[in-house]
């Protein structure tokens, strides 16, 4: 009956094939069940007639309803099939009860369909011939990449050979890529999708001695107080908020320049919104810590027993820790030496009223009550992509003062930007890096190196590279300049194509290989496009933000001749004459990579070891844990059973030479000097940026998803009513955002601009605007500086500190079809 009706979503029949997978997007990684079956039939609404074993209609909160966006039709194992991707209602963790985000709830729309909006997936490798991307055989593509790589190594050395690759897209792919780039080629010209250099994203917290992913979602629910800074969890880690944070009893202290949903929610339930000015996190966290100490509310016993003495600090081997580490007394002295950290000075410095700072200190500690509340501190990019080292150090100090680590409900942790799928086949060759700070080697700033013309071959894997980096217009200029040198490629003949591209290198230019699934803003600079497989098109493993490792099964076929990333790396590795690239499938890579994960927060070596002992495949053993998975580091007990680790630092031992935690004296004066360089000039406004609920990263899926494009037909700019009125701007107007004060990769002043639809809202304060960070064709990073030397300790961009003049340049029709209603209404 349902099969014949067009007004329906087909139900999986009882014999539908069932597989497991986790969401592709946010770091929560909800578990999903995938049902596939031939297109010529369907199940029925009676329990006996469908794979769920339930009667339709299903009850509210059942987790068994299939919305239109949970269904698609695509090829599975070579057969045209119905595919339903539905939250796992039986999961024992994460999205308990089968809840989901809007992102995961539309995962089926991610899959390739020949006639649908995903039909423009790359299906063949292609060569750029005079501006046209023409299909070529894989053999030719592989040979070209290998020969060009060898030409680079032979003539310019490994520093001229670069790879920029996602850090998260499954253990098997990142292991294969790093085996080629780090182990065999040994280049330091290697960086992740989100930063100009390898290395730690939260170095201040690491120098404190705390792992950035130490908490478990259970800690959120167990906490009495949640201090959340730099990311709206409802918008971007949805199910963590709706399942683990909101249902708990915790009072929420929320830190953000914007009054987002979570800010309003926190205030409506007895919490606080600390609405700081952009770039002032260090002062705010330090002021709270100072007030706690001033009142005598610090966790004295924790500090006494678990933080380092001067002698222990002096014995530390890590240069940054030696440079900035301090004892509690030294940190107290520093905090009390800064006027901006005082109750009298904090509002001027941060915009946050003193009484809210005082109240935050009281809430986080109990204000001297006999029983200290359990406080968990959660941070994300608004903290560490504002002022990287100082902000993360100040958060670490606050965690130590409040004793927020290593115990149930007491943690400090990143919430994560993406899932955790990185494992490296070899260490990063830091000694080869050309960049340093005061004689201490730093990971190479690969974008500076590229813009200087030092990279002759660059392999970009799985990202909209240029728009994702700071000063993206200047970086695009560099890419255009470096790829236009030498003669054009005029033929798909491998010898002729090689000769032309090698000559470009010899004339000082760069050859760019882009391994992608869709066209994006960066691909236009590619010489060779390698058509890649994607999530769900091979079987992989990955961890979420609480180190929970799950198996992501292959659920659909890749389009055309697109190949899984690991297969491409393996083919090039073999073509270059390297051994160890003859894997038959991803399980072989998973098992090979296990030992390399040992000692990390994602340690799955024991799982691989047990699988081999038991004579089963590593992936199969992982699958036996279902969508609930297993939390790393994984151990093995005396009986041979695997053990998991809900939270790190449970022994109150920290990642330092002494095993003690260290206070880090974050340099607020350095932050202030940087803010003067980065801050708005004249009539510029702050242009901060981030993600929102309905969208994800570079939108490669989302610009092909009607539910997303209907909500956000173009990029938008949240602007306050006063700032809008002063500029004659109304919601739906087309505005330009321009700055002539952007620093490029070499530190030169350049300009940047993009356009957006105005969204007039008091979610942002006067002087501050907000936009999506990587909307195709309208990238916000054009007005973000790309000079990593501003943060010389760790070579990171100040992504959140963009700026620009905002003016109306026209109108759109969006007011009639896009909602401009407030996004921070709270439930009664």
């Amino acid at each position, binding site marked *: *009956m349902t099969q014949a009706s067009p007004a329906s979503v087909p139900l999986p029949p009882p014999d539908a094939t069932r597989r497991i997978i986790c969401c592709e997007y946010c770091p929560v990684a909800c578990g999903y069940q995938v049902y596939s079956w031939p297109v010529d039939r369907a199940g029925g609404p009676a329990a006996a007639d469908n794979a769920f074993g339930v009667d*339709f209609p299903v009850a509210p909160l059942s987790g068994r309803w299939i919305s239109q*966006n949970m269904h698609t039709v695509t090829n599975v194992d070579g057969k045209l099939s119905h595919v339903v991707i539905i939250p796992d209602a039986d999961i024992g963790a994460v999205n308990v009860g089968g809840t989901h985000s809007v992102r995961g709830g539309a995962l089926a729309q991610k899959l390739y369909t020949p006639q649908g909006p995903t039909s423009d997936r790359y299906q063949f490798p292609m060569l750029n011939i005079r501006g046209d991307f023409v299909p070529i055989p894989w053999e030719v593509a592989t040979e070209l990449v290998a020969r060009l790589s060898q030409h680079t190594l032979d003539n310019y050395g490994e520093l001229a050979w670069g790879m920029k690759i996602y850090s998260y897209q499954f253990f098997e792919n990142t292991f294969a890529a790093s085996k080629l780039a780090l182990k065999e080629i040994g280049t330091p010209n290697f960086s992740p999708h989100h930063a100009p250099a390898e290395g730690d994203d939260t170095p201040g917290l690491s120098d404190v001695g705390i792992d950035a992913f130490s908490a478990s979602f259970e800690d959120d629910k167990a906490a009495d107080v949640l201090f959340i800074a730099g990311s709206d969890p409802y918008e971007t880690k949805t199910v963590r908020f709706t399942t683990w944070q909101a249902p708990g009893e915790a009072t929420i202290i929320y830190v953000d320049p914007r009054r987002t949903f979570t800010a309003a929610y926190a205030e409506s339930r007895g919490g606080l919104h600390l609405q700081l000015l952009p770039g002032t996190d260090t002062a705010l966290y330090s002021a709270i810590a100072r007030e706690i100490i001033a009142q005598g509310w610090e966790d004295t016993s924790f500090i006494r027993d678990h933080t380092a003495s001067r002698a222990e600090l002096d014995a530390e081997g890590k240069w940054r820790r030696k440079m900035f580490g301090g004892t509690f007394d030294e940190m107290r002295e520093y905090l009390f030496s800064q006027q901006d950290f005082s109750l009298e000075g904090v509002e001027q410095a941060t915009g946050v009223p003193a009484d809210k700072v005082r109240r935050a200190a009281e809430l986080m500690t109990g204000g001297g009550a006999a029983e200290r509340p359990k406080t968990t501190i959660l941070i994300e990019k608004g903290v560490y992509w504002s002022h990287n080292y100082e902000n993360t150090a100040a958060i670490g100090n606050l965690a130590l003062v409040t004793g927020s680590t290593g115990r149930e409900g007491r943690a400090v942790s990143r919430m994560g930007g993406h899932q955790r799928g990185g494992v490296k086949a070899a260490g990063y060759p830091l000694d080869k890096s050309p960049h340093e700070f005061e004689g201490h080697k730093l990971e190479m700033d690969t974008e500076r190196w590229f813009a200087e013309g030092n990279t002759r071959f660059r392999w970009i894997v799985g990202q909209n590279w240029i728009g994702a980096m700071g000063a993206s217009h200047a970086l695009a200029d560099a890419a255009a300049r470096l790829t236009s040198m030498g003669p054009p490629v005029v033929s798909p003949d491998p010898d002729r194509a090689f000769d032309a591209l090698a000559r470009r290198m010899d004339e000082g230019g760069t050859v760019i290989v882009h391994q992608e699934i869709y066209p994006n803003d960066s691909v236009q600079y590619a010489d060779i496009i390698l058509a890649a497989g994607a999530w769900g098109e091979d079987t992989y493993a990955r961890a979420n933000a609480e180190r929970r490792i799950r198996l992501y099964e292959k659920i659909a076929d890749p389009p055309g001749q697109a190949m899984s990333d690991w297969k491409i790396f393996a083919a090039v590795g073999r073509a270059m004459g390297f051994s160890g690239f003859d894997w038959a499938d991803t399980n072989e890579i998973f098992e090979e990579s296990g030992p390399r994960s040992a000692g990390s927060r994602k340690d799955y070596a024991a799982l691989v070891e047990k699988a081999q002992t038991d004579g089963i495949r590593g992936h199969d053993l992982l699958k036996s844990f279902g969508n609930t998975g297993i939390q790393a580091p994984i151990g093995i007990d005396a009986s041979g059973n695997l053990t998991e680790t809900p939270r790190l630092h449970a022994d109150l031992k920290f990642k330092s030479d002494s095993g003690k935690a260290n206070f880090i004296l974050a340099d607020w004066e350095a932050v202030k000097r940087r803010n003067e360089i980065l801050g708005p000039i004249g009539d510029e406004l702050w242009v901060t940026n981030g993600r929102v609920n309905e969208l994800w990263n570079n939108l490669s899926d989302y610009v092909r998803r009607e539910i997303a494009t209907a909500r956000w037909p173009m990029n938008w700019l949240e602007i306050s009513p006063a700032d809008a009125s002063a500029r004659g701007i109304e919601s739906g107007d087309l505005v330009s955002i321009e700055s002539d004060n952007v620093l490029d990769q070499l530190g030169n002043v350049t300009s940047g601009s993009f356009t957006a639809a105005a969204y007039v809202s008091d979610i942002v304060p006067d002087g501050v605007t907000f936009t999506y960070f990587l909307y195709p064709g309208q990238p916000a990073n054009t007005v973000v500086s790309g000079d990593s030397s501003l943060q010389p300790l760790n070579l990171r961009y100040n992504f959140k500190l963009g700026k620009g003049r905002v003016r109306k340049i026209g109108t759109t029709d969006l007011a009639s079809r896009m*909602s401009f209603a407030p996004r921070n209404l709270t439930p009664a």
Partner: protein
Amino acid sequence: MAKLTRREFLLLGVAAGATAAVGVVVPLAVTARDTVGAGDQAGALVGVFSPKRIASLADLEVGVPVAFDYPNSGQTNYLVKLAAPVATGQGPNGDLVAFSRICTHMGCVIDQFDAATETLGPCPCHFTTFDFAKDGGVVLGQATQNLPRVLLNIDGDDVQATGVMRLIYGYNNTLLDVASVGSSA
């Protein structure tokens, strides 16, 4: 019949050819997938049923929702007279809209309507908010489709519900079980 889109007009025209007894909510027709209005992101799934009077046109006040069940009892909706005409509005001024208030995320019923912003929600379960002025689209939240829109017809002072566009939470089929439940007012 006032202010229906061309597509809705055609749909109801088709339905009229299969008219069933007035007074009982009976499925009359289903439609093919199509796109109607802003934010109708996944194609319109429409069930057309026998008309049911849901309100007096003269009694409607701007921003004051009128609750009614349709097409089944328990399938609760809000009829709202908006402050201004909208693209999908009906009635003499194009300002009448009606949507299911069963959240299309996980099926919870939403009571909270904010007249100032013309939004429904946040849903008490997972906080999705919907915009009545933008075809029941999601303002912020986790639902993967717009709210089901109730098609309206104006007959004198009677505001009638005549069909439902899009799947209602819990159902795999717009017409499932409808014939066995409910009767019109």
